[in-house]
């Protein structure tokens, strides 16, 4: 193993491990500020460090500090302490581990070697996600059962029944998708989606399998126990469901696990249906050939975007009441300076790309970075859809939930398999 090999292994594994963790903060922030804006309020905007509020991100630090220093209670009536403590770890671990098979860039070719850009370069792909999604149920069941609490028990039962029954439409939606792509490997699926349909439409899963997308997204929402399917923790009837008895960091681990699961399923949805890391109309080979024009366009585009973004910051980061010598304006000025600095650094990097020989290692790495950025952007947008749905739709009733799963999604996904099978056979 050469140094490059080792470096890339470290990079890929740390990407697979740390990106979901970093996204917890982003998603919690997005959820709260998003909820605020959806409901015409402003969300957390007071917590600060020396007056810097980072648009409310500092609130996460405050919450983390609170949760870390809270007393970690294990109620006296709990008989199976091991399961009680083990359960949140299962939920969190399965969520993080299921991200490991998601490719975040096309296979990187350096010299004569190629590196699959996944944390675990395995070709079981989507099956790994399904396996770990099944394991997440254990965390919920054990948490609900070990709590020895009516609400916890009912919440755990509901969550488990829900996840088990929605795994079926999810798996069946995947079957038709696999028939289209002809592989279970997520990397190959993403490469497949770089092609063009009829020469001008990106061959994304959403265009080939619209019904599959709907079924899969609904099932993924149910699997992640998010609204409108979050009746496992329906606070009006079950207080908090399976995590009533949990406090402090044990609760925080559940909470973070939920957000990691949301991030992972967004990443999976993006990879399966929205082209993964593919930039529409620019697949990897095209990008490598046209790396320099793309870099020039980016160099021109970045300052323009930054100019408007700075204007937006200046407009929104103000106090909306009479305040002499408004500190928020000063805060905004600092943010804008920092962001211009970041833009300047990025311009320098792009300049370096322009000056480097085309088609070389630098170009390949540049393309990989572009694809990582695209992938993260798409995943963030999908996470926003999760937030968006949560603050729009009311919760289902339990019988409605099961009816939707078994009587609507299951037949629909079977129908989808037949149609897809017929079309695939006819076309090939």
């Amino acid at each position: 193993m050469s140094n490059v090999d080792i470096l890339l292994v470290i990079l890929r594994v740390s990407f697979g491990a740390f990106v979901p963790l970093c996204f917890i903060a982003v998603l919690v922030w997005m959820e709260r500020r998003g909820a605020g804006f959806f409901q015409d309020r402003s969300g957390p905007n007071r917590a600060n460090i020396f007056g810097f509020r980072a648009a409310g991100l500092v609130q996460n630090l405050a919450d983390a500090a609170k949760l870390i220093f809270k007393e970690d209670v294990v109620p006296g009536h709990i008989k199976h302490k091991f399961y009680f403590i083990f359960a949140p770890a299962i939920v969190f671990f399965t969520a993080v581990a299921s991200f490991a098979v998601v490719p975040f860039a096309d296979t990187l070719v350096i010299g004569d070697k190629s590196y699959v850009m996944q944390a675990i370069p395995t070709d079981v792909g989507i099956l790994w996600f399904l396996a770990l999604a099944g394991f997440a149920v254990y965390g919920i069941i054990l948490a609900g059962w070990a709590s020895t609490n009516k609400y916890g028990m009912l919440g755990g039962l509901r969550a488990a029944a829900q996840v088990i029954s929605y795994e079926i439409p999810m798996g069946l939606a995947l079957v038709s998708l696999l028939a289209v792509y002809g592989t279970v490997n997520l990397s190959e699926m993403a490469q497949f989606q770089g092609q063009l349909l009829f020469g001008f439409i990106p061959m994304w899963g959403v265009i080939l399998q619209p019904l599959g997308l709907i079924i899969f997204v609904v099932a993924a929402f149910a699997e992640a126990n998010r609204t409108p399917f979050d009746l496992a923790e329906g606070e009006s009837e079950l207080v908090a469901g399976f995590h009533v008895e949990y406090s402090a960091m044990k609760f925080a681990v559940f909470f973070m696990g939920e957000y990691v699961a949301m991030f992972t399923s967004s990443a999976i949805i993006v990879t399966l249906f929205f082209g993964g890391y593919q930039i529409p109309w620019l697949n990897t080979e095209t990008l490598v050939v046209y790396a320099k024009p793309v870099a020039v366009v980016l160099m021109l585009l970045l300052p323009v975007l930054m100019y408007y973004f700075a204007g937006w910051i200046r407009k929104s980061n103000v106090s909306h009441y009479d305040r002499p010598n408004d500190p928020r304006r000063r805060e905004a000025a600092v943010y804008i300076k920092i962001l211009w600095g970041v833009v300047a650094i990025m311009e320098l990097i792009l300049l370096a790309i322009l000056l480097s020989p085309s088609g070389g290692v630098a170009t390949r790495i540049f393309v990989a970075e572009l694809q990582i950025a695209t992938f993260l952007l798409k995943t963030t947008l999908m996470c926003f859809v999760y937030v968006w749905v949560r603050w729009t739709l009311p919760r289902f009733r339990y019988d409605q939930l099961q009816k939707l799963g078994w009587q609507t999604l299951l037949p629909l996904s079977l129908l989808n398999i037949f149609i897809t099978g017929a079309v695939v056979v006819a076309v090939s």
Partner: protein
Amino acid sequence: MIAELLFSVFAVLAIIGGLGLVLARHPMNGAICLVMTMISLAGLYSLLSAKLIFVLQLIVYAGAIMSLILFIIMFLNIRKEDLPKEEWRWAYYLGGIVVIAPVGLLMTKAVKALPGSEASIMGNGFGGVKEVGVVLFREWLLPFEIVSILLLVSLVGAVVLAGKRRVEQ
């Protein structure tokens, strides 16, 4: 080297899980031990580079079936009073060991006597999704379909039984 180490770890875990399933008093402990065995078996499959079987073991056995079993245990809400009093359990253990020991010794001898006991990893693509699929649907199509019909029959049977009881009420 690493493979052998992993093999020993998975094998020991699988056996511990199996013992736990038999010996544990509380059904929940038994079920979790069984999950452990299932996962260790999946690890053993992956060491044999049987990727599809590895994932299927995780999805079907460790994931779906065991979570249903846990689900049922959770429904039953078993308390300590509900468990049977096993006053003679140590006698049963002893008797079990006495019965099993000669069989076990015989089995070990038989396995050791097998030709080609030093396992080597199979060639490229063995046990992958595609390879298993090709074999399954080309050479073993008829048994595969018959097994699926068998499963369908049991599925319909279960539905019929569940429906009948409701009508009688």
